[in-house]
């Protein structure tokens, strides 16, 4: 952790209120995000218990599995979830704009621009915390290999029609969330933690309620007091006033409220099955409905505080202006969404269980580029983030005190002016170290020449000065200019071309082979999902 953010945390403790870590918002926020607050059954892998979902904060859809061990009820939940999520995704699929994409010609290996469609905007999913992102991934994994009755008439337990499709989308969103700076699927806690330093540890910051308490404490209360209440306060019934943001539930809720309610539901269902006549059945159906409604009421009470908290978090984030380069990163997200839309339309199979060697390497290289781009972009967009890089010796700001014209020693001399800069920063420079500044939105390169007395240093400007003997107007700093230079590059270089998966070399096990089409998970009567 950089000393600047350490200091921010300490100030937060002292002032009783979270302190800003940024001056702008570094993630794009959709005007109409879909918020998804799921709960899961303790001890079961991927047995959802319930969820609130929707893009209208005033009207969330409540989905509940009254008996999580019942496969039919789980399928009903997933089918309802698909009906809540897929129309939201579909709404973005058809609004497209023309765009260019660079493609590598398989014959010549040359990069060419091709016309393509790009979705004008992309759907954005917000979950309360990181565990929510993992749960989206888990749900995606559990659904995407399911077979519907239409796909496989012999499937013993066919999944509802749109469930496998939702699985593929959830998988795509969860995978995209691993790309640094991507914003298709975000956790509210991550968003808040990127922009504010609370007065507690980063572990405690994973608690959405406590984190919000620091950022936006109630009138007359310190962040610490409000956070403690969010963590621990229980009502007369022994239940947490601020339930966990899920997907895990509080054991006290499970044991004291949920378990008895599920048991009543089971009994009511059994009673209904053994009803001997229509009249009794009607009566018992009422009992079952009451039991189910009670579970819905209990889960709604657990979910609503988190639902409200996520929207509150979005409100707070919207108060920050969006950083310039966040928009460019959102464009990558739109490409990601468009690409997956196209793969589904083309009838490609669901994503495999595990990546092959080439796919894994490609993803890692892309993510490393995204990470470097994100770090550079956030610093360039935000003086407060840049301050951290300056403290770390990775950037420096200073005033130009002298500019000396100079040229290369060649037949056609090019300008290589020397710029003397006074700075209080202590960058890690050695002779020849390349440094960069932003000039008309593009990076200009210089190299470090030498130190001069009294905190001055000399740079030689290397490019972006035009083709003439004298530098183009405005391309060389003037005396008195205050400029921030970075030791990191602003843009990433082209990635190497990896082989096609069919050409995987012997060092990596050779081609993965064709017989690797993914099979659905085997089903047993006691399966959970």
């Amino acid at each position, binding site marked *: *952790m*950089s*000393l*600047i953010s*350490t*200091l*921010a*945390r*300490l*100030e937060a*403790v*002292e*002032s009783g209120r979270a*302190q*800003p870590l940024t*001056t702008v918002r570094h993630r794009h926020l959709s005007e109409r995000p879909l918020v998804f607050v799921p709960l899961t*059954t*303790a*001890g*079961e*892998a*991927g047995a959802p218990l319930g969820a609130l979902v929707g893009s209208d904060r005033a009207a969330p859809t409540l989905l509940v599995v009254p008996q*999580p061990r019942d496969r039919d009820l789980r399928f009903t939940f997933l089918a309802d979830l698909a009906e809540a999520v897929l129309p939201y995704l579909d709404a973005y699929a058809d609004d497209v704009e023309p765009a260019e994409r660079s493609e590598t010609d398989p014959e010549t290996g040359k990069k060419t621009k091709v016309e393509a469609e790009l979705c004008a905007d992309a759907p954005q999913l917000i979950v309360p915390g990181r565990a929510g992102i993992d749960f989206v991934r*888990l749900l995606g*994994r*559990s659904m995407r290999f399911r077979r519907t009755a239409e796909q496989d008439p012999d499937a013993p337990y066919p999944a509802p029609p749109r469930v496998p499709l939702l699985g593929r989308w959830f998988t795509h969103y969860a995978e995209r969330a691993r790309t640094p700076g991507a914003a298709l699927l975000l956790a509210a806690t991550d968003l808040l933690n990127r922009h504010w330093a609370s*007065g*507690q*540890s*980063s*572990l*405690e910051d994973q608690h959405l309620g406590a984190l919000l308490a620091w950022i936006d404490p109630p009138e007359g209360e310190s962040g*610490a007091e409000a956070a403690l209440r969010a*963590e*621990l306060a229980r009502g007369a019934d022994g239940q947490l006033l601020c339930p*966990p943001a899920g997907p895990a*539930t*509080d*054991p*006290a809720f*499970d*044991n004291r409220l*949920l*378990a008895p309610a599920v048991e009543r539901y089971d009994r009511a269902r059994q009673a209904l099955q053994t009803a001997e006549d229509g009249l009794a059945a009607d009566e018992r159906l009422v009992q079952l409905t009451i039991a189910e409604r009670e579970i819905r009421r209990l889960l709604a009470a657990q979910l609503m505080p988190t639902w409200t908290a996520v929207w509150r978090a979005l409100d707070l984030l919207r108060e920050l202006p969006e950083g310039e380069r966040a928009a460019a990163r959102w464009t990558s997200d739109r490409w990601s969404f468009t690409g997956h839309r196209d793969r589904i339309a083309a009838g490609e199979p669901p994503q495999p*269980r*595990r990546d092959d060697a080439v796919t894994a390497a490609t993803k890692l290289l892309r993510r490393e580029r995204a990470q470097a781009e994100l770090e550079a972009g956030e610093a360039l967009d935000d*003086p*407060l983030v*840049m*301050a*951290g890089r*300056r*403290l770390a010796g990775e950037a420096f700001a200073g005033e130009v005190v002298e500019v000396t014209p100079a040229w290369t020693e060649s037949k056609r001399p090019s300008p290589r002016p020397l710029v003397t800069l006074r700075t*209080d920063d202590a960058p890690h420079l050695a002779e020849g170290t390349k440094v960069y500044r932003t000039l008309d939105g593009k990076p200009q390169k210089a190299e470090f020449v030498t130190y001069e007395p009294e905190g001055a240093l000399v740079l030689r400007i290397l490019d972006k000065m035009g083709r003439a003997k004298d530098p183009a107007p405005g391309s060389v700093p003037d005396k008195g200019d205050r400029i921030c230079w970075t030791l990191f590059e602003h843009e990433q270089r082209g990635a190497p071309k990896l082989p096609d998966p069919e050409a995987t070399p012997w060092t990596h096990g050779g081609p993965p082979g064709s017989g690797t089409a993914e099979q659905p*998970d085997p089903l*047993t009567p*006691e*399966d*959970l*999902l």
Partner: protein
Amino acid sequence: MARPLDARALAALAANPGCRRRALLDGAGVDKGALAEAIGSPSAAFGQSQFAFMRGNAFEAKVKGDGGTELLRLLHERMGAGSEPPGDATAPDLAAAGPEGRAARTALALREATAAGSWALLDHPMLALEVAGSPAYLEPDAVVVHPDGRWTVVEIKSFPMIDAAADPSKVGAAARQSAVYVLALERVASLTDGASVDHSVLLVCPKDFSNLPTASVIDVRKQLSVTRRQLTRLARIEDIADGLPPGITFDLDGQSGESLASAVEAVPAVYAPECLAACELAFHCRGRAREEGAVTALGRAMRGELGGLTTIGEVLAAARGESGDPADPTVAAVRRAAALRAEAGVPCR
């Protein structure tokens, strides 16, 4: 009131080996949850959901059902090393009176099975290990004796292995817990001809989204060496106790919350936020650390760049130029950080 130290608690000691408070209370078998309640700092959620509990029991029963056929098949498949498949493994009766009796019965069963040179499955054996001068009794889910005299610890957990991967923090905890069993088994093996203890254990979990068992072999050599070293240096509980003022007890009955709290305070603690998930007293210790303004209350890593400055007040005073020697690189760095932050528009208040 006192509860014997179990493997989970022993493994959890590794989460904060420098904390004497935890070492003493765990070693003395104090119910820390009840203690926390009594001194007015109950923990957030250390209970277990009955859904998880039922699921865990049902899974273990399924794995061990039918005389452990499926468990032995998995073990042979993963770590059989070319041996005969276990057909009729013996499943010795380990029942005896009290933990000492059960531990003796287990040792006998291990010796007999090793001498017999065939497969044997010991269901919930009892192992004894001396920890900080007091005996701890440990109960692994199962131990399998191979025909060649190897003993393998089997740990059954109800978190899933999905596509051959599982939650790394849960696997890590299982590995540390298993290492304690391996250590205890080694003491018995050293007294048994022809016996050796596997330094890999078998972790059995539900496969994907089913309740069918699958298994993975985990190399616990690292955890073993850490546990070994920590157990030998775990200050003897009597030594910690000897350093306390006379008359201190943690008897929950007949003692006021206040006097209990001062007893707790008499034992030095090392609080870090990781304690919140590992120790029932953590909220109490956090409260004290916050009162003292300790920077470590915000995370162990916070101190990395703060050198000799250990309280929030000291750091902020140094940052504002109110105290501290500017020649101290820490003081210079926090001042520089404060200046850069102010330059970017957030003045240090």
